[in-house]
């Protein structure tokens, strides 16, 4: 698809030849994830997480479809269908459910690593802007799916989580409350909300799968990025996806699934909240309402706005929380540095790691009871989050002097030849000339 030296599909078996002439599906697969897709030869292990995300999407869909065969989407029956029927009576139902519960968490772990890899190596930059944006669409759909899935067991956190999250809409003046009631099908989460959440929870993973196809399609036009961020120049720079990256992804996936299985089998409830084993009770608010861990950073941003400055604090919180994801769509235009990889951007690199720490601190701030200290830390780290993307990144990309880039991928693999090969002084000029230097 992408490079002139990509090996075309040559069916050997007459049956495959026959099929290929009529429906070139084998050709498509061969060109997408087979020997016909040339990939930069220098990818590191952070490039394994895209495939892993696909694996976890599959795990979620397969376990989810079987769980749906036994689940009852009714406010009276949901809790028991999960905790009695599935967990006790269905053959290996406990395994399906724990695999699905923890599969969601690991899907997010993998996706977060995938996203931060993209942030560090500048994978959002031209010509991969649409790959990045489609990825964000997937992430957004994942959050919606995960939230609705968490409501389905109809435990205390399910109920009150649904209450809080749909409550976001009521922060908007005038239209907010009618929208909230319309979305829930009532004044509070009840049967109508549960049934539609179930319906959408079943639908959205397939929408995700569809957007994943677009994400991969858009990726295969320019081809995968790589740790140097330097464009692929000739065949020497690449290796066919199969067998090289299928082998690398294969063993790494097995190793990562090992961690997932250790949690699923030996600490299945570690990542969950104990209150969700109490049946939903609209009359008893839990001591503290916290979302699942993968939402903690956003929850911290939401809670950090405590002062009614012109607008009500709640509206500020909701706007900021949505903006915190929305701004990522503009990243390709906020960061104008032509150097993709953070490895060649000394200033950017420091701020990147500060962002990683900041998001972890935000998670800590959002995951616990709101004490004054936790709130203050949450507010500082929320402010840094916005400053990082909207102020620091544009400024850094303007003033930073990047390090000299290697001339080509294959040179960079040659253990240090890269720096020697770079034209003297190329690193001292502004970004623009670097891009030219690396393009020619």
């Amino acid at each position, binding site marked *: 698809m992408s490079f002139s030296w990509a090996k075309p599909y040559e069916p050997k078996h007459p049956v495959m030849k026959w099929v290929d002439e009529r429906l070139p599906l084998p050709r498509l697969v061969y060109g997408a994830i087979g020997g016909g897709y040339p990939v930069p030869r220098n990818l590191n292990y952070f490039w394994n997480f895209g495939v892993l995300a696909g694996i976890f999407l599959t795990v979620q869909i397969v376990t989810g479809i079987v769980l749906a065969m036994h689940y009852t989407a009714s406010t009276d029956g949901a809790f028991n269908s999960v*905790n009695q029927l599935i967990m006790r009576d269905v053959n290996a139902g406990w395994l399906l459910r724990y695999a699905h519960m923890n599969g969601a968490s690991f899907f997010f772990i993998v996706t977060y690593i995938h996203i931060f890899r993209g942030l560090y190596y500048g994978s959002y930059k031209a010509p991969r802007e649409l790959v990045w944006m489609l990825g964000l669409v997937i992430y957004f759909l994942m959050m919606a799916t995960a939230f609705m899935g968490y409501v389905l067991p109809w435990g205390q956190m399910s109920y009150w989580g649904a209450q809080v999250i749909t409550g976001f809409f009521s922060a908007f003046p005038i239209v907010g409350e009618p929208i909230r009631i319309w979305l829930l099908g009532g004044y509070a989460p009840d049967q109508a909300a549960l049934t539609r959440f179930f319906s959408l929870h079943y639908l959205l993973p397939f929408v995700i799968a569809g957007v994943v196809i677009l994400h991969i399609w858009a990726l295969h036009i320019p081809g995968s990025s790589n740790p140097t961020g330097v464009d692929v120049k000739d065949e020497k720079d690449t290796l066919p996806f199969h067998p*090289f990256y299928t082998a690398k992804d294969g063993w790494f996936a*097995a190793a990562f699934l090992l961690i997932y299985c250790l949690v699923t*089998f030996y600490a299945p409830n570690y990542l969950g909240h104990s209150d969700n084993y109490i049946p939903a009770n609209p009359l008893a608010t839990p001591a503290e309402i916290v979302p699942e861990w993968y939402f903690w950073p956003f929850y911290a941003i939401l809670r950090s706005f405590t002062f009614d400055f012109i607008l009500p604090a709640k509206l500020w919180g909701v706007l900021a929380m949505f903006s915190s994801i929305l701004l990522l769509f503009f990243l390709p235009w906020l960061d104008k540095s032509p150097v993709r990889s953070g490895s060649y951007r000394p200033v950017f690199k420091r701020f990147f790691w500060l962002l990683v720490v900041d998001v972890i601190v935000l998670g800590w701030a959002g995951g616990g009871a709101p004490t004054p200290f936790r709130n203050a830390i949450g507010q500082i780290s929320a*402010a840094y989050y916005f400053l990082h993307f909207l102020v620091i990144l*544009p400024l850094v990309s303007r003033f930073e002097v990047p390090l000299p880039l290697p001339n080509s991928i294959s040179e960079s693999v040659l*253990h240090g030849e890269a720096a020697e090969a770079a034209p003297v002084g190329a690193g001292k000029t502004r970004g623009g000339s670097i891009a030219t230097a690396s393009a020619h």
Partner: protein
Amino acid sequence: MVRVIGFLVGLVFAGVLLISLISGVATNLSSPPAPLASEEFHKSPKPLHLASDGPFGKFDRRQLQRGFQVYSEVCSACHSLKLVSFGELKQLGYNDAEIKKIASDWKTQVPSINPDTGEASTRKALPSDNFPSPFANETAARAANNNALPPDLSLITKAREGGAPYVYSILTGFQAQPAELLKKFPDAKTPQNLHYNPYFANLNIAMPPPLTTAGQVTYADGTPATVDQMAKDVAAFLVWTAEPNLESRHAVGLSVVIFLLIGTVFGYLAYRQIWQDAKRAVRVTGALEPENQAKSRRAKVKQGVAG
């Protein structure tokens, strides 16, 4: 344009957060939050070690039977066990005849209808029934317990942070309110009908001490029934009710982990094998020759790139 708007949005959000931070800090300095008795005197659960702990843990069936005995003779007076059926007791080592007897002798009967008239009535429980609840409904339960609702115990060790050690600590944690607490928080005296228990979130629990004297239950296996022993046994039993598949989970987990370990090792060896030639192909130019490496190092130092 995007960057100008972004710049402004970023500054506005950061500014409002700064105002929130300052107002929050100012509020806390002018009127610091009052210390709470439930924060200062609350205790984390006591350690409890059960046979089911750990990746290789298995249930101690004799202990589960003792725990079941405590549940049926003490706890079941108020607490339901809605998700568990009599038939499941087979996993505890009871045989079919024993289970049938336990079910039909159970102190509460199962709601049913009179087969002749269709009127509401009750019948003796069968092994296929779940444990019938001691109260007909929540209102009846509250009416009998000073408006407190005894929670269902089926999932209690998963539904409380701290799990089995929490249950054990609550059961053995009843005590007189410390004088120090009353001195520091004169308003925090345990109200009437509540009972001081430092392992409970707000220190005052509606449940009266259920296990009070040694020998309250006469164990069928002759184990001395101290309060501590009974609390441990019932906690172990409630681990089983919450997670009856724990043993198969541990066993299946072990085989899955072994399978994946083997898969990882073979996968890694295959990966090394496949990449060997690819790596060699890159090295044809001699980059790894010591001479070239030294040259490259010198070049790096000269350009100030060496890390």
